[in-house]
Structures are given as structure tokens and as C-alpha cells.
């Protein structure tokens, strides 16, 4: 067991003993990502917040069931995915919240790597953002989910397969389809 694994197992032990500081760190680190993924799936801010809150409560209760086969982040996203699909089944809807529907004060800039052009340069005008938002809104929810987890949450195909419960090849296809359709819509928009 290397140092990183030892540190992980010690941290996991702290989570299992319901160490407040350890859990506060987990929640601080993952709550925005979980909320973003929920919002992309169900489109309603209030419901997404309720689900996000429930994800962490379930995580706290069920941490003994976390076997460490995937990362903690993947495990929490899996709980979020199940809750969102349950919500979708109960409510019988899957609205996608457009980017322009999210108040600006609730937003923060995307985390970009240094070699990637700035958000303003890439996203360009509000018109392009709006076009992307429209394209995402009309995208199949399973494609949107896979693409969001890959690009925004930077999860591997293997982790996305765990979260969504489908084979890795299906994840690969979904992400390709999402890119293809979004690109097509943006080209048509021009």
C-alpha cells in the first residue's frame, strides 16, 4: 500500500467515524459539482438543491457501504444519479435548466486549464452561450448526463460507467453522440 492509499484509507476511516472536519471537507469539495450535475439532469434549482442535500445525508449514513472500489466523488455522484432518476420517475419530467435561467449571482466561472482559452474568448458572446444552452436543452438526457460528467466533472469513462450503470463502450458512444449533436446544432445556429 503506497502513501496515497494509506492516506485515503485513513481519511476513509475518519469519514466512517463521522469526523466533522473530514465530512466538512468532502462537502465543501463536492457540493457544487453534485448540485451542477443534478441541475443538468432535472432542471429545477429548488429540487436540485433538495436532492444535493439528500445525497450528502445518504453519504453520511451509508459510508460503511462505500468499499473504495471507485473514488468518493464517483460514489457520491452515483447516489445523486439514482436520486435524480427517482425524482424523474416520480415527477414524470426531465426539464433541463438553460444557462440563462440560472441567475448570474449564483454562477462562478468554469474551471479551465491554463492552456485552454479563457471562458470569455471561448464562450464568446451571450448569443453563443444561448445557442449551447438551447442545444443542451434539446439533447437526450442520457447524452447530456454523460457529456456533463466528462467535461464539467472531468470524470473518466470508467467512473461515468459506474455512475450511470452502463458499459464503458456505451459511455464512449454517448459522449461522441453528445459532441456530434451539439456541434451540429451550433453550426446550424450560425
Amino acid at each position: 500500500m503506497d502513501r496515497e492509499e494509506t492516506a485515503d484509507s485513513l481519511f476513509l476511516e475518519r469519514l466512517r467515524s463521522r469526523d466533522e472536519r473530514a465530512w466538512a471537507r468532502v462537502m465543501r469539495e463536492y457540493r457544487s459539482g453534485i448540485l451542477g450535475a443534478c441541475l443538468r439532469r432535472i432542471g429545477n434549482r429548488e429540487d436540485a438543491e433538495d436532492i444535493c442535500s439528500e445525497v450528502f445525508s445518504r453519504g453520511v449514513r451509508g459510508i460503511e457501504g462505500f468499499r473504495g472500489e471507485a473514488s468518493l466523488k464517483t460514489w457520491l455522484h452515483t447516489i445523486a444519479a439514482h436520486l435524480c432518476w427517482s425524482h424523474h420517475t416520480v415527477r414524470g419530467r426531465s426539464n433541463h435548466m438553460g444557462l440563462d435561467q440560472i441567475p448570474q449571482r449564483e454562477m462562478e466561472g468554469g474551471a479551465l486549464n491554463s492552456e485552454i482559452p479563457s471562458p470569455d474568448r471561448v464562450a464568446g458572446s451571450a448569443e453563443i452561450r444561448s445557442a449551447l444552452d438551447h442545444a443542451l436543452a434539446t439533447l437526450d438526457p442520457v447524452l447530456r448526463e454523460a457529456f456533463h460528467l466528462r467535461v464539467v466533472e472531468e470524470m473518466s469513462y470508467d467512473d461515468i460507467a459506474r455512475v450511470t450503470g452502463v458499459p464503458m463502450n456505451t459511455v464512449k458512444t454517448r459522449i461522441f453522440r453528445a459532441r456530434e449533436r451539439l456541434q451540429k446544432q451550433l453550426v446550424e445556429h450560425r
Partner: protein
Amino acid sequence: MMMCDAWSEDLSAWIDGELDSRRAREIAQHLQACEGCRGALAGFQHVTLLMKAAPRPRASRHLTDPAMALVRKLSRERRGTPAWRSLFEPFWPKFSLALSGAAIASLLAIIVGHNYFFSNPYGRDLTDNPRQESAAAEAPVGPSIQSTKPTISGELAVADSAVGADRVATLARALGGDAYSVSTAGSSTVFVTVPPTKQGAFINGLSGLGKWQNTTGAPSLIGPATIGITVVQHP
């Protein structure tokens, strides 16, 4: 120009770094030769960057308040800490310190009080009468009587010194005390302790056994005392 169907999905996976090195090299070589796939790659990269640059929702800290409350509850249950302690949670460290201090002070008070009571069971002010304090500390019982210097000494003249010594010891024991005797030729010395309330009765009893003479004057018999009685044979 269209991209090649054979490469399409792998082109997307190549952007994500999900291809093995052999397949990644093949893609790179193909891209040099295929304008259609280069165009598709540029389009894929564009939507990826747009998505990455899209605003993200900011989650309020209070969103996880219920989960943190659950952490604290389960943590308390795990440690066996009672729920009432949550009332003191904000200032618990200071409160527990004060509580510990009070507990230690109470314990010390009990120990000191216990020692004082048992060293002075009759409640006398020992500092006013150091001689009696010393006697109290040295109150002999059983064999240790022998090594104790008598507080009162006297001589008892009887017809038979051995029988007289036995009777003195019997008298002392009858009054709740103890006795130890040393016999020599023609006389016996009996060291006796009797409870303070019985000392008067003991002296009176001695007078009934023979001719008693106190050789230490007339001490006040207050408190534990050792009485040394030399029992001599009357001529």
C-alpha cells in the same frame, strides 16, 4: 467534408485521453491525412471548450447543513455522548474543564475530611493538648503494648503475683481493653489499655484485686492511655 465513420467515436475518445497509446498514434497519423476528420475534431473541441466554459451553479454552504447535523448526531451516538451535551457544544471545552475542576476539588475535600474524622473520632481539638494527641496516635493494641511507654504506672501488691497479673489482664479485657504481661522472678508487669470511659472503673477494679499505688501521681485519665502495672507479691 465528412469525417470517417471508422474513426468517429475514437476521435471523441482521443480528445478525452481515453484511448490506449497504439490507437492514439493511429488517430494522430490519420488526422494528418484526413481533412474531414480534422474538421470534425475542431468542432468537437469547440463544443467541449464551450461546455467547460459554461457558468456553474454555486452551492450554498447551508445546503449541507442537514448532512453536517447528521454527522454530529451519529458522532455523538458513536461516542456515547448524551444528547443534552449538544446544548453546551459551543462552549463545551471550557465547561468540561470547569466540571473536571469541581470534581477534583470535591474528591480532595472528601479525602481530607475522611482523614480528619478518623484521626480524631471524638472531635477534640488536638492542638490544645499535644500530649493527648501523641497518646492518641500511639494508642497500642495487642502485642504493640509492650513497646509503648506507659502513661500511668503503679504497683499492685497481691498474695500471688502470677495470679494477680492474670486477674489484671482479665479485668482489662472485661472492660473492652487489652493486656500484655511480662513475668520475672517474684513479680509481673502488665501493660494495659482500656477505653477512656472505662479507665476509672479499671482503677477501681485494681483496688479490689490488691493494694494499688499510683507511682506517677494523679494523672487525669482522659483519652487512650497505657497503664503499666507492676504486680508484686505481698510479703
